[in-house]
């Protein structure tokens, strides 16, 4: 774990899409495995395409690298009531990846692939 503590967020970039989705889903609090899937599906509006095993492969890897921490729930049988939360490093990596992606999105705007004005969701959100 000590080596992970010295790691710099940039070492992990770019993240695979699934890893980023997992980190993103945990940004507002710890969740169970199925909670992660539900959050991702709600946000994207479509069923998660990865298999459950692949999801856990990603979780295992993120955990090993110190981006996620697991917490056992009281009284629950080990491994069943486990919730996952972002570590400080995980939060930093997620933010770095989001920035990286945002930069790519700006590039796309500059190349006129996307309309250059503010995204409609954000605009309507501001007026409310």
């Amino acid at each position, binding site marked *: 774990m000590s080596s992970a503590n010295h790691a710099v967020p940039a070492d992990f970039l770019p993240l695979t899409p699934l890893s980023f989705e997992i980190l993103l889903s945990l940004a507002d609090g710890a969740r169970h*495995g199925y909670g992660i899937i539900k959050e991702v599906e709600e946000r994207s509006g479509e*069923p998660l395409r990865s*298999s459950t*095993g692949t999801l856990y492969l990603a*979780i295992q*890897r993120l955990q090993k690298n110190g981006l996620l921490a697991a917490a056992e729930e009281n009284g629950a049988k080990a491994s069943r009531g486990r919730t996952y939360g972002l570590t400080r490093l995980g939060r930093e990596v997620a933010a770095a990846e989001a920035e990286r992606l945002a930069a790519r999105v700006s590039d796309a705007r500059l190349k006129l692939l996307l309309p250059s004005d503010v995204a409609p969701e954000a605009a309507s959100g501001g007026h409310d």
Partner: protein
Amino acid sequence: MVRAMHRLLLFAYPASLRREYLHEIQDVFHIRLSAARAHGLSAVVRLCWSEITDAAVSGFRARRGGQPVPSMFQPPAPESPYDRLLTAMESILQDLRFAVRTLRSAPGFAFAAIIVLAVGIGATAAMFSVIDAVLLKPLPFHEPDRLMALFETNPERGWDRAQVAAANYLDWRDRAETFTDIAAHNDWLVERTTLVAGEPTVVNVNEVTGNFFRVLGSGLILGTGFDAGDEWAGEERKIVLSHAYWLQQGGDEAIIGRTLALDAEPYTVVGVAAPEMQFPFAAVDAWAPLGWDPANRTATFFRRAHGMRAIARLSEGTSRQAAVSELATIATQLQGEYPDTNMAMGNGAIPLHDWIVGDTRTPLGMLFLAVGFVLLIACANVASMQLARATDRRAEMALRGALGAQRLRLIRQSLIESLVLAAAGGAAGLALALVGVRAVVGLLPADFPRMQGVGLDWRVLGFALAAALVTGIAFGLAPALRATSSEPGVDLGGATRGTAGSSTRRVAALLVAAEVALVLPVAIAATLMVRTLDEIAHVEPGFEVDDTTVFGLSLPRTGYVDGESRAAFFDELLTSLRQLPGIDGAGMSTRLPFVNQRWSSDFRAESWAPDEFGVGVRHDEISRELFATMRVPIREGRDFERAELDGEPVAIVNRALADLYFPDRSPVGERLCFDRVAEDCRYWYTVVGVAGNVRRSSLTSEEEPSIYGSMAQNGSASGFLLVRSELPTDDVISAVGVAVRGLDSALPFHTVTTMEAVGGGSGGGERRVSGLFGAFALIATLLAAFGVYSVVAYATAGRTREIGVRVSLGARGADIMRTVMVRGMMPVLLGVTAGLSITLAGAGVLSGFVFGVAVRDPLTYAAVAVLLAAIAVVACVLPGRRAQRVDPVEALRAE
């Protein structure tokens, strides 16, 4: 089930993942699954699909220590063979996904193709499961290839594979060295009575030699069975129970050594047979030693009564040839030693499997051929549908080719699409087979051997899978080649768009011709069989089958020790039954027409010259008034009478015997005996009447010369009670029950049936096989009609532009129709010609199934050919009509 399969899938992932997260992954998958269920079937399918494909790709990749998830940001490391495998897997998965998408975008085609394939594969799988169980699976005995069935032959008497006389069997056993041992069993079941919870019930016992189970090598699950030599009467009576009977009696493992009372005689249970041991008859409840009196060994009847079947186990390394010739040598020795009984008596041996399976090879083979034709027709059908689509998709394929897709890849894509269809068809076919197997088993004759093993197992599953795979390639390859053999310049140019190329048309026409050619043999065979049924229905059996209920009755040896008491019981029973209101007649016979084996004897008349004798006449015993009950006329003389119970032995002969042996005078008053030589005759029977002929073996066999003895005089202990009444069968059964119990409350009766059912059993084999054939023929015809229709409809639709041009140039509706008909019917007529030739060439195999019509009956052939052609005409008229309504303006504008 899903859980177990999912657990299996997880083996694709590294062990460390399973160690850490197994339960969690399973829980989460389960929540996902139930959430998907709430969204309907398609969500479940999507979830399972992603679980499977994702596990295959990313699971294996992770095992290799690579990326957990395939990512476009991080391209894979340099190629290793493993990587190439992964890439290939991914691209095949991609093709699969693409195929599923393509098929979903053409649901009508996909649905039709899957249904057609399901019918073909389902019917074939159902038939295969029967063939597998009956013909292919080895017998459930130890080293079954070494088992032979032995029989006797006598060319002089027309005996072929006859039952064996006990004394001859014993001599074979003593002298033969090519066999390790020879066992024997009676060729019938004895009905014994035992009390179960106070109720008398029947136990079907087969009497066997002591070495019976050892020779078969059939395992007993409990006990040690009989000992060699147990066939001779000893102090203790032993019995081995069948597995089914043992379970029925509670399946108590402590049963060994207990006593079972049969007909109030104690039997010691020495074994319980393994479940698969149902030999020699499926209905066997138990086996008991024969219990021969040692004095029989030298008795003449022991060498004269042929009632046993012998089974031998070949010595290690001995050829069947050697065994057969050794047996023949022994037969010759016996002919010399016992000229009186063994004159012209030979013997023979065939593998036991052939013996058990017997005559079923031909009908099963024919049915499988028919069903194979159905599958081929289904393939041709789907192939022509694919061909039509391939033509439509040439532009798409050309575009993909132009964009750089390799032809091999396009062919693979097309083949994978066919395989997806075949897999779906195979799955649906298995579901159909599940139902179909039951239907086929129900339709096959009840006495068909080895039917208890029929069912869907992994062998059938494998067969269906292989069938689906082969059909997928068979119907997919031609269209795949067709679709990809394009020149981008031509196909993208649009000049040929919507028109089938001439070579495609040729292939389509050949497919139609093949379908029609395949339908004809099946349809003709079915028609011949239906006509056979019609002929059989018009055969006069010689008695009236309606309104007759049949009961089996068997008097236990204890309580009815002598012939007089048995005769008295039956006489009292018949008398009381005849007095009941609504009962129009009652009589008994030791054997039922069509059901029971024939017993035949030689006989002689007292008035004949010493060297004259009659050979192989049928010999049954009956009660008085049986003929009246069956409505068999007495042509001359009279029926048996009550008064002659204690008098001189009497007999009735049938007309066939009278005509054959007494052509110029009446046999009434003649004295007959069942032996060739007058000096050997102990009983002389005086003929008192001549009865009408009764077809006793089957409706399709000749009437046999028969002699009827009197049950009452011979003191028979068991037989069949026939009761004629117009009352409902249930009322008759309860009336007979009351009458029987009134005389003996401990007597069971069994095998309640109706004479109509028994009559249905005769010709039943033909009826059932032809029923199956009819079903297959109907399916084949429908499929072929659909094939003709779809090909013609497609070809016509493809010529919309041409037709538009011709209409605008002044062609009339009739001209358009004629063109469509000519093009549609040419391949049909070609197919009819080919099909008729095939059928004529192969008609010989039908000879055993056809009665009263010729296997090459021209009328049948012509009628079926014309009918098929007429169906094809209808299939052409529908698209022709549509072509006639083509609006030339629209048709030309469409291009």
